[in-house]
């Protein structure tokens, strides 16, 4: 309350004496302030754009330039080859296999992840005992280094002497061939990703949930809505912008997934038959194992276009849901 009292103090002091109307003496200064008015806003926002140009735009364009050349990692720039690198990448089967893997792992991770994050956030939004403990708890997997996570999980998912298969065998089930079977390897990697990111997303959603006015829930409760109905009729619609944000960020992250598949076996190349080779692993192999920066850059650009494509599709879908829901209410 005391804080509120101080803000009610008269604001007059901030204005100070008003500037006198421009006198002839001040004309030149006025012109200068015209320049000032016109250009200084650009100057104020310049740091962002300069930084973006240096760290975002330039590498992007330069990668495109590299992609048009024969470019050895050590020897540097070679001949200009036009779109040859793109053609070589797109006509090879490796790229498409990596693309399928990436999308598959992305779907297997993002969808359950966001659903689970939503449920966890709802649970944390209740009046729990030791609230902070639980909230910090869900963030814990995010704090653990991904490499450590991958090491633990690669022991869980070891084909022959792994913990999960040992458990399956004790209850009489067939062991899963986590590294040989393509789909099983995607599930295993998606599990690592979910382990790491679900809590993080849950906290973002929780923050948004806290901003939902409590009286909406009270009214709904008075109207006889149960918790489930309240969740769908109040929580989810109120969270829509946050959910869109979470979906977009997890799309970008999911399509660039690298750490988990790289750490999934001892070689980090995505399996002997490319079972879990994602686009970023493929890119890394081209550039850093085979030393072909031209091809690697071509893949980088294609990956960029794919992410933009997915982003647009996601945006359109979620916007449509948003407007449809909006009309309904």
């Amino acid at each position, binding site marked *: 309350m005391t804080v509120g009292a101080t803000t009610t103090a008269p604001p007059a002091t901030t204005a100070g004496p008003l500037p006198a109307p421009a006198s002839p003496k001040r004309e030149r200064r006025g012109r200068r302030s015209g320049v000032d008015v016109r250009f200084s806003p650009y100057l104020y926002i310049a740091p962002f754009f300069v930084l973006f140009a240096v760290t975002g735009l330039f590498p992007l364009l330069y990668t495109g330039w590299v992609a048009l050349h024969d470019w050895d*990692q050590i020897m540097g720039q070679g001949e200009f080859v036009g779109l040859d690198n793109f053609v070589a990448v797109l006509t090879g089967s490796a790229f498409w296999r990596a693309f399928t893997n990436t999308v598959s792992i992305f779907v297997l991770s993002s969808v359950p992840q966001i659903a689970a994050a939503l449920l966890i956030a709802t649970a944390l939004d209740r009046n729990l005992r030791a609230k902070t403990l639980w909230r910090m708890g869900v963030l814990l997997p995010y704090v653990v280094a991904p490499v450590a996570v991958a090491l633990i999980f690669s022991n869980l998912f070891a084909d022959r002497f*792994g913990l999960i298969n040992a458990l399956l065998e004790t209850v009489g089930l067939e062991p899963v061939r986590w590294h*040989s079977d393509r789909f099983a390897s995607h599930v295993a990697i998606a599990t690592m990703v979910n382990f790491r990111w679900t809590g993080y997303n849950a906290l973002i959603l929780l923050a948004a949930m806290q901003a939902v006015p409590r009286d909406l829930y009270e009214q709904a409760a008075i109207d006889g809505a149960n918790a489930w109905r309240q969740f769908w009729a109040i929580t989810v619609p109120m969270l829509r912008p946050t959910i869109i944000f979470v979906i977009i960020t997890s799309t970008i992250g999911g399509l660039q997934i690298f750490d988990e598949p790289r750490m999934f076996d001892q*070689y980090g190349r995505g399996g*002997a038959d490319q079972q879990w080779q994602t686009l970023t692993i493929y890119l890394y192999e081209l550039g*850093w194992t085979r030393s072909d920066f031209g091809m690697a850059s071509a893949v980088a650009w294609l990956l960029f276009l794919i992410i933009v494509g997915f982003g647009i599709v996601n945006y359109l879908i979620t916007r449509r849901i948003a407007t449809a829901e909006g009309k309904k209410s």
Partner: protein
Amino acid sequence: MQSSKHIYYLLASSTALTLALTACGDGDNGASADDGDDTGSGSGRQIELSVATFNEFGYEELLKEYEADNPGIKVTHVKADTADNARAALRNSLGANSGASDIEGMEVDWVVEFKQYPDKFADLADPEVEGRWFDWKTEAVTLEDGKLMGYGTDIGPEAICYRADLFEAAGLPTDREEVAELLEGSWENYFEVGKDFVANSDAAWYDSAGALWQGMINQIDYAYEDADGNIVAASNPEVRAIYDQVLQASVEDELSAGLALWSPDYTASFQKDEFATMLCPGWMLGIIEGNAAGVEGWDVANVFPGGGGVWGGSYLTVPAQGDNIEEATKLAKWLTAPEQQVKAFEAKGTFPSQLEALDSDVLLESTNAFFNDAPTGQIFVDRAEAVKAQPVKGPRYFDINTALQDAITRVDVDQTDDPESSWAKFVSAVEALG
């Protein structure tokens, strides 16, 4: 307040103690520096050298010794966990033309690809070191114009390690002399004995088809690339023949435990009775001992099918981008001298590539308690002398061999392909390399 003051006091005093202890350590080093002859520049100018290695080179103590003997030189040791990561880091710094260490360790499988960039490395040729190594060790890093790109550190002469207890249970001889006699000869013989073994045992004959592949391909002079540098991997009948032989033995005859090298399953399998023999370069002893801690029965036989063979081994090179090429060369020369390499052997079991080191009593008399007190020094000296030549590896060796290892893994470990379809995938992978 009282308690936190107390903590500060504790912290302060423990820091002081640590400082005092380190100071003592420095004092000791100083003392030993005095009796070494001062060959260093000693003009008060501090030279910093960095040495990049991977796995275990056994250089920790040696570098300290060098610092003590050469005042004014400070050596930092950069260690990568695997050879692959060391290779990637080195490629990166060569590409960026900065960031490489003054001395870079290189593995024999990929040292050759760096021969494509001779200007990136200092010439280490020096009359002083001529004849220091096995000829074939030096030839692999000598360029056409006589430039020497690296000094040899260790080599991986191969013997056969085996589980005497499993041999006994299957009715095979257990004494290492008898086992050596039993396995003497060709790979066919090794596989035949294996068939006898698996008929009488639950265990497999060897750990992994991939390991067998390394042993066999390293006995072929021009495996993947011919003398002119053309890629012949897919058309070389020798390659296809051993590919078929390995997979026949591994899958059809069920001699392989079907483990992927270095995987968690592979590491865990040493604690169980999964397989009875392994191809065993010197550096493998440490790995077996580590993974199989507590398992009794390991021994090593002085034999290798198909003649001698080497698996692994490394070099030290001096990238041309360094600021102290002269001092770095001096250090590399010192590290790879026979005396130092014997010390590295004592520390980590890396087997020296220097001819003179093979006469060292320390080496010849060393035994290994874990391997039933086998005279490992003598065994590996014999194994090294059985090696007549090191296969010629071209610049694409590493990439092609990786693709071939994948092909074998698909059949032996993953069972997603049969030998024929997996070979087809290998062929297209090689074509994609261009």
